């Protein structure tokens, strides 16, 4: 629980807003929102998660169960930062397999040693 307990000091806090037109108030509102959202968006641009990577494998034609198993394995090897789909596609290309075949091979325990970007 926060220890913050504060009376309603709206009248003093609003001083700097009082003279703003509605348009200016709206513009300021959205400007501040943008300032709050930007670092969050930047984190999303530069990070991923097991959920995102599983969703990539779903889109590459794997079932949810297969995607989970593949992502768990890649995470154990600390490889997810390269992108699960990227790892899989590169593996397929190197071994002349389809993406599906590469995934199935991994599911059977093969190729894990060469799963490098």
């Amino acid at each position, binding site marked *: 629980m926060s220890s913050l307990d*504060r009376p309603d000091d709206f009248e003093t806090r609003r001083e700097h807003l009082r003279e703003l037109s509605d348009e200016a108030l709206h513009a300021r509102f959205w400007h501040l929102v943008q300032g709050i959202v930007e670092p969050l968006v930047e984190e999303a641009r*530069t990070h*991923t998660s097991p959920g*995102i990577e599983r969703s990539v494998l779903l889109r590459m034609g794997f079932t949810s169960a297969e995607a989970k198993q593949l992502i768990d394995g890649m995470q154990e090897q600390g490889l997810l930062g390269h992108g699960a789909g990227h790892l899989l596609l590169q593996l397929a290309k190197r071994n002349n397999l389809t993406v599906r075949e590469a995934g199935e091979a991994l599911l059977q325990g093969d190729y894990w040693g060469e799963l490098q970007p």
Partner: protein
Amino acid sequence: MKLDPDNKLDILEVLQDLEHYRPRRKGWVWRKHVPEQRIGPFVYQDSSENLKNSVPLPAAEYFSDIDPQCDLIITTEIASGRFEDDLRRMRMAAWHGADHIMVIRTTGQSHIDGLIEGTPEGVGGIPISRKQIRASRKALDAIEDEVGRPINFHSYVSGVAGPEIAVLFAEEGVNGAHQDPQYNVLYRDINMHRSFVDAAESKKIMADAGILQLDGAHNANATAKEAWKVTPELFVQHAVNTAYSIEAGMDAGQIALSTVPPTAPPAPKLRLDLPYAVALRELFEGYKFRAQQNTRYMEADTQETTVSHVLDTLISRLTETDIQSTITPDEGRNIPWHYNNIAGVNTARQTLMGLDGLDQLLEVKQDGPFREQVRELKERALLFLEEILDAGGYYTAVEAGQFVDSGYYPERKGDGIVREPDGGDCANTVIAREDDYGAPVCSHFGRNSYADKAGKPCADYGGCTLCDPAKIRYIDEVDDEDNVLQRLKQPLAEREQGLLRPEVEKHGDGVVCLTLFIPDEPHTAKQAALELALHMGLNNPEVINQRIMHPAEGSLFEIKGTVDLYIEKQALPAYSQIRPLTDNEIEAWVRPRDIHIVAATVGEDEHTVGLHEILDIKHGGIEKYGFHCHNLGSSVSIEQVLDKAEETDVGAVLISVVITHADVHKQHMRNLARQASERGLAGKVLLIAGGPRIDDKLARECGLDAGFGHGATGREVASFMVRRWREQAA
């Protein structure tokens, strides 16, 4: 798959060949506003295209059975726990005007780190799986053909498996979804880094699939101690999710703010809620508005709830609204029963049709306290934003308990929800993308080496599932016991045998609701009510609503319980399938023909009420169709009746026979038949009898043309006469 209004939805047909079913479209569909639309006797300002099949509002029978549809989307939320039962409820709701079907997820799905497969049963909603939503979408595709209007299917892209669910929804043609990372953080205690990172991916997928997004701000209304004080924060929550969604690639027209008028009477609702609603629409111009009805102050009294929801809907009409969401009036006392979904939908459509063209009649006064309140709310919200930035950003503000504090911001009570940036479910699961990070799929957010190349990111291997749906892999069932076919065994067997049980939620749940008034003080009355319910055969009776009428004079109770009873359809007595004609049809025949009727209560009989009900315009009787009625009164002889009939050249004779001792009623009817025949009136004049102990079979046996028993209406009598005359004329 094609539905027939006279037949039940065939669940087995829905399940058949499901592995190959593809949704017919992606994306959200709005209703088409038809300006100045003539429907029946009226011209509507705010209506949309009519339905092919529907159940009109009850009063429609007085207005040529019209069923005008408002121009807002109407939402209903469904949560039975079994999708196969949900489907029947969806069909009923669609027939009553719902075109946004929101399927609630089972408790706990937010914390499942992955997709659920198969068709397990849920609690308070269904587990969202590919099979369940594909089956639902398939059924809805058939239902939308039946009613003649597109139906938007909706669920939730929240929890720790958000991006996977978003892919699933994009693939399966789900049209709308809640997506708001703040909901994960505040209400599900899911790690905030994970929630926001995942949300960007989910939103990008939804954006490309045309899925309409609802945010989660309305949850603050529902959880705040005093919901009207959380309003400044609501602007902030809407804004954070909106700005984040735009950054993730959504169009403004795809972003719907989920907004709830925060109070309910006895609070001065409009005075508090309208400034808030207007301030919101001014700050968020260009976005869509999903107006939700209030749940925060719902008690067990469904009528009180309904009145609040009518006022909520009035606020929707006074402001700009795109979707009118409905709450079932029983949500304050149980998981919604299916007929209450319909009740909620009807509250919205009845109110909205009643308010048609409201903006031609009035506008909100802009001078005086209203405008000041609007301004104050915006300023309070802006101050909230300033404090977030001063605190060091969103994460630190949440950590400091700035959200869902019960003070009217900037007032603070110190009781806000506190979450640690490195805590919560799935903490430390966000991973930095390496320099070579890549995701060779469409609808991916953020840095991606495959997005830098020419062509689609998925081109290297022939396309992702979003480009080539044939690549989608379908899992049917994963559990031999907990699946739809197992659950359907009993219902299908019972349907085969023609057994009928009462239900409120799931097939054959046997739940019934009893209303009774007990004339004693509340506690004694409650005990007595429960005891009576037991005597009436209700198992596990439970008071779901008690309203004190007076502390000593008594209370009203609604009691639910279960009955382990069924009826065999084959054993039911046969009933007449004849439906009365519409008022318009009857009048169209009668009025131009100047038809006279003679009527009387015959024999030594002073009863006159029944006959008045059939004849008098005041009682909805046949006078209103243009009949000239000659009511000779009571204790009239058959001779007098027939004298009058000859004198005025009537079309029909109506006799009322109430007394039945020594079979005197049969005697009167036989007398009428015999004497009419002797006078040569038989075949020219319709001979009709009515009374509490009369029925059609008996009257015909006595030589008359028709008989009408207890509960018969003037419309039924007139329908019979007009039908007979039409036949004779043909």
